[in-house]
């Protein structure tokens, strides 16, 4: 079963995650999990972006926009108080279906709002729709035009959440309830839930990686790689380049949105700072530094750099560090920090197919 070999890294990382947790718990330093968990969620965005940039060859300078769509949707739905509207038929319908529940906010007042699961579903659906609509025209564009279009997309989302009263404007939305996945399993930022949240985050990340690896090795993945190597040739061979690129675009948007949803529940808040140009650029830097078409590189860099940044290790030089790393990698080691020869892997895979 030659296929199994490609999943070995997943198992390895999973084991590493478990060992790490055991060590941290034993040394009473589980607080590191806070930043690791947050970084893992950011890494979801990076994985998606890596698929888009590295494999589909599309550049996106606005990917934080999808993170925001996911995060803000659940934020609004789970905190907007429908008490005043409780007599409206739509609201009572949702209530009877269990989509809208009554709970107490942290100050003890009663509020009526959507529960996290339906909010999550809505967020993902919305992301798919928007990604599809945006992707349709934008995927056609080349090089810097796509870069500009994606930048524009990110900016529009930024302006909307910054200006919209329902989005909390500049202060964002806080007091977002935790996400109870099933009884006994919650995405919750509080200290008591640290280990739980850590495992949930890594589970999601590894599931995403497995999906991504599957994609890369599937028919779609091969089609994408052929597009990346030589688009015209691929096109002439009948590969529907447009359809595959769109698929990856939407998928990468979903990854980002899931990251947004989960991190928002974990932090209990979200603000416009999650969707600035700087944030989008940061995701791009991480993908570039990890090696554009290197999923594991993207994951490691994503977790590592975000972890260090969130802990304030870079201090006031935070942005500068990212910039320097980016430039250094681009100049000296364009394949990324892990230096895995993507072409060799690709050709060896292809030859194996041909022989097998």
């Amino acid at each position, binding site marked *: 079963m030659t296929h199994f*070999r*490609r999943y*070995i*890294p997943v198992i*390895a*990382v999973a*084991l*590493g995650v478990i*060992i*790490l947790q055991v*060590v*941290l718990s034993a*040394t009473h*330093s589980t*607080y*590191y999990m*806070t*930043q690791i968990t*947050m970084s893992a969620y950011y890494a979801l965005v990076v994985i998606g972006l890596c698929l888009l940039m590295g494999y589909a060859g599309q550049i996106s300078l606005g990917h934080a926009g999808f993170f925001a769509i996911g995060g803000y949707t659940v934020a609004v739905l789970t905190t907007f108080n429908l008490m005043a509207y409780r007599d409206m038929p739509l609201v009572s319908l949702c209530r009877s279906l269990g989509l809208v529940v009554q709970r107490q906010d*942290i*100050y003890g007042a009663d509020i009526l709002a959507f529960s996290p699961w339906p909010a999550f579903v809505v967020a993902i659906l919305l992301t798919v729709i928007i990604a599809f609509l945006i992707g349709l025209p934008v995927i056609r564009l080349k090089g810097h035009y796509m870069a500009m279009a994606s930048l524009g997309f990110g900016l529009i989302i930024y302006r909307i959440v*910054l*200006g919209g009263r329902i989005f909390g*404007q*500049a*202060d*964002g939305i*806080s*007091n977002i309830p935790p996400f109870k996945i099933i009884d006994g399993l919650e995405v919750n*930022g*509080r*200290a008591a839930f640290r280990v739980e949240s850590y495992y949930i985050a890594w589970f999601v990340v590894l599931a995403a990686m497995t999906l991504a690896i599957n994609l890369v090795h599937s028919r779609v993945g091969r089609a994408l790689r052929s597009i990346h190597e030589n688009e015209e040739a691929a096109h002439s061979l009948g590969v529907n380049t447009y359809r595959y690129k769109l698929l990856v675009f939407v998928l990468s948007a979903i990854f980002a949105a899931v990251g947004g949803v989960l991190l928002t529940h974990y*932090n*209990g*808040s979200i*603000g416009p*700072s*999650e969707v600035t140009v700087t944030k989008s650029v940061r995701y791009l830097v991480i993908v570039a530094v990890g090696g554009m078409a290197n999923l*594991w590189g993207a994951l*490691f860099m994503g977790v590592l750099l975000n972890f260090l*940044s*969130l*802990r*304030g290790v870079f*201090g*006031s030089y*935070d*942005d500068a560090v990212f910039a320097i790393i980016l430039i250094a990698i681009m100049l000296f080691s364009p394949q990324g920090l*892990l230096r*895995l020869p993507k072409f060799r*892997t690709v050709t060896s895979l292809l030859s194996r197919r041909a022989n097998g």
Partner: protein
Amino acid sequence: MDMAKRITKIVAILVLAFTIYVSSVVKAADAPTIKVGAIFAVTGGAANLGGPEAKTAEMLVEKINNEGGVNGKKIELILKDSGGKPENAVSLAKQLIDEDNVLAIIGPSTSGETMQIKNICQEGKTILLSCAAAEVIVNPIASYVFKVTQSDSDAARRIYQVMKAKGIKRIGVITSNDGYGVAGGKQMASFAELASVTIAISEAYDKQETDLTGILTKVKGQDVNAVVNWSTVPAQSLVAKNMKQIGLDVPLFQSSGFGNIKYVEAGGEATNGTIFPCGRLLIADILPDNHPQKKVLMEYKKDYESRFKEDASTFGGHAYDSLLILTEAIKKAGSTDREKVRDAMENLKGVVGIAGVFNFSSKDHNGLDINAYEMLTVKDGKFVIYKN
């Protein structure tokens, strides 16, 4: 496939390295210090707030420690730069609370960041002394959360008082689109009717805006008797200049965010005549000697200006006040037990700070009232007290 092997190797090495690092971090023997965390936006979009705040905090802690500390213990200030980003503030707050076990956190610099860490501090039973302005920080009240800035509502009322005296009936309000500006705009709106003033137009401009002639033309078209600008961003200097340049010759009111001589310098002679409510730091030298705040203000001003070679600003003053209130509470409680300090803080009265004289209670975690503000104006490029 050697990719898989390679990755496995790397993962193993990383986990090992991290394990070693974590276990080798020796927990520092508990020296008797009082750990105080600080989260300020030293870099990033709110750097004009966080920069002076961080400097003030460091300076004051040094001074306190040189004078023997608080109740015999020195203060250990753990300063973090959030870059003005709430998600960083969240992570840093958790670090300070969970890892460093700080007694209190001073800052953050902006309302957005404060709101996102409010719950975290409350649940972590860590006193939060915010240097941000939003009323929602202390309303609804969370027992461990305090704020040391003057209220926007008081500022709005002071402005309306002056307008009444000047017979101004119709105004235009422009604000920046950040939390501070939007909150200010709301306060202006809520007191307008009471003051019998009509707000003919109220708009928010982007905080990075570089030219306000367009928006001011719109205001001019409404035949207003005065303009109110509410922001802390550099654009506040533009307002004064652009108004004069397009011939909108009416009084200009600013918010307390204008309280830094740099904005006057940036605006040049256009800023003469601007009226705004502010803490007394900027006119400390012309206060009468028997004014309760004079001593504290002059001392801070002198220390800050001689050390950092730049003018003291009211923003830095907030950091000063938060440390002052904390140390007073610790002294009053006679211990560093969280609950005791918190209780003591809630009952502090008559603490003379930079922003005003603080009187806390269980219903008032802000401690300042309308008298914390003095109405100031600009004359010949200097701040003076406004007299009707």
